[in-house]
C-alpha cells in the first residue's frame, strides 16, 4: 500500500518505521526543514518536507494514489484538514486522524474521517480498567459495525450472582464473548452462570453497553462512568 503520513513527530516517525518494515510504501511529510533532515537520516527518501494540508504538496507526492492518509500532528485542526482534503480532493479511501482532544472525535466522525485515534482515550481506558471494582470500561471500537468491546466487572454481593446468561434477558445488541473468573477463561453459553467478581467481556453498541451495565449492577441506567466514556 502507498501510505501518506502528515506530521513528523514521534508518532509519525515510529509509525513510518513500522510501516516500512511491513513493506509498505510510505511518505512522511513534515513542515520543518531541520526535522526533515533529522528524520531522513533514518528514513531516507520516505520523508519529505511539506505541509500535508496544502493541496499542492499532496498533489506533488501522489496523494491520489495513496490508499491511506494518516494525520498525526499535534494539532487537531491540522489533522482534520489533512484528512478532509485527502478525502474530498484526492478521494483517498481511508483517512486516519489522531485526535488529541477526545471531545473532538464526534466532529471528526461527522465530517467523514474514517478512523480517529485518541491517545487520551486509550490511556484513559487502560487506567479505568486498572481501577479496582471499576464498572464498565470501553476497551476498543469496531468502527464499521458501530460496536465496541466493553469489560464489565460483576461486583461483590451482586444481584445477579448465580444467574445464567440466558436469564439475564440481555438486549439483542449485547453479545457476551468471554468471561474471566480469576485465572479461568470461560466461553459463554446461554446456560453459563455468572458469579461475583467475574470480568464479563461483551461486543455491544453504546445503548447495549448502558443496558448491560444496568443489568450487571442491578440499578437504573444513570452511570458515573458516563463522564469517562464518550460518544462513538
Amino acid at each position, binding site marked *: 500500500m502507498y501510505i501518506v503520513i502528515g506530521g513528523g513527530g514521534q508518532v509519525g516517525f515510529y509509525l513510518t518505521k513500522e510501516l516500512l518494515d511491513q513493506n509498505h510504501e510510505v511518505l512522511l511529510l513534515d513542515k520543518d526543514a531541520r526535522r526533515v533532515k533529522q528524520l531522513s537520516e533514518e528514513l531516507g527518501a520516505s520523508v519529505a518536507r511539506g505541509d500535508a*494540508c*496544502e*493541496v*499542492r504538496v499532496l498533489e506533488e507526492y501522489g496523494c491520489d494514489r495513496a490508499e491511506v492518509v494518516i494525520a498525526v500532528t499535534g*494539532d*487537531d*485542526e*491540522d489533522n*482534520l*484538514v489533512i484528512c*478532509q*482534503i485527502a478525502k*474530498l*480532493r484526492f478521494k483517498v479511501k481511508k483517512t486516519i486522524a489522531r485526535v488529541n*482532544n477526545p*471531545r*473532538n472525535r*464526534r*466532529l471528526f466522525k*461527522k*465530517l467523514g474521517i474514517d478512523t480517529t485515534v485518541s491517545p487520551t482515550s486509550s490511556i484513559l481506558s487502560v487506567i479505568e480498567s486498572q481501577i479496582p471494582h471499576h464498572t464498565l470500561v470501553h476497551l476498543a471500537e469496531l468502527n464499521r459495525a458501530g460496536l465496541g468491546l466493553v469489560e464489565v466487572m460483576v461486583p461483590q454481593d451482586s444481584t445477579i450472582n448465580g444467574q445464567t446468561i440466558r436469564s439475564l434477558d440481555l438486549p439483542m445488541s449485547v453479545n457476551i464473548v468471554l468471561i474471566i473468573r480469576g485465572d479461568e477463561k470461560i466461553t459463554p453459553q446461554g446456560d453459563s452462570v455468572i458469579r461475583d467478581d467475574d470480568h464479563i467481556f461483551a461486543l455491544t453498541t453504546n445503548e447495549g453497553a448502558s443496558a448491560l451495565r444496568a443489568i450487571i449492577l442491578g440499578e437504573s441506567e444513570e452511570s458515573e462512568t458516563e463522564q469517562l466514556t464518550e460518544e462513538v
Partner: protein
Amino acid sequence: MNIVIVGCGRVGATLASRLSQQKNTITIIDLDDDAFRRLDKSFRGETLIGDGTDQEILRRAGIEDAQAFVAVTNGDNRNIMAAQIAQHIFHTPTVVCRIYDPKREEIYRALGLTVISPTTIGAESILEKLHEATQAATAQSR
C-alpha cells in the same frame, strides 16, 4: 443579533467593534489577552480568552444562542475547524470563515461553508486596478 467571533486580530477587532456599534450582542474569543486591546473604545460586547476550536469555550461564548459565527483567526485550519464545529455541532444559522489559501477556499466552499479569501479578493482587486491603469495609459498615449 447574537454573534460569536473567534480571532481578535485586525479583522476580528474591526468586525467586533463595528457590529457592536450597530447594536449587536458580540462575544469575541482569542487565545491572547493582549489582542483585545485592538477593540474600539466603543465596544460593548464580551471578550473571552480561550481556544475557539474548543466546544466548551464556544458554549461559554454563547454559541448556542448565536445567530452568526465568524472565524477569523490567523490560522486557516483553526478557522476551518471552528466553522465546521459551529455548522455541524451547534447548527449556527450563519457561519463565515476566512481562509487565506485559495485551494482550501475552493474545497471548503464546495462543502457549503461561506468562505472569504483575502488572497483571492486582494489579487482580483489588484488585477482590476492594473487593468484599469494600463487601459488608461493606452488611451492617453493615443
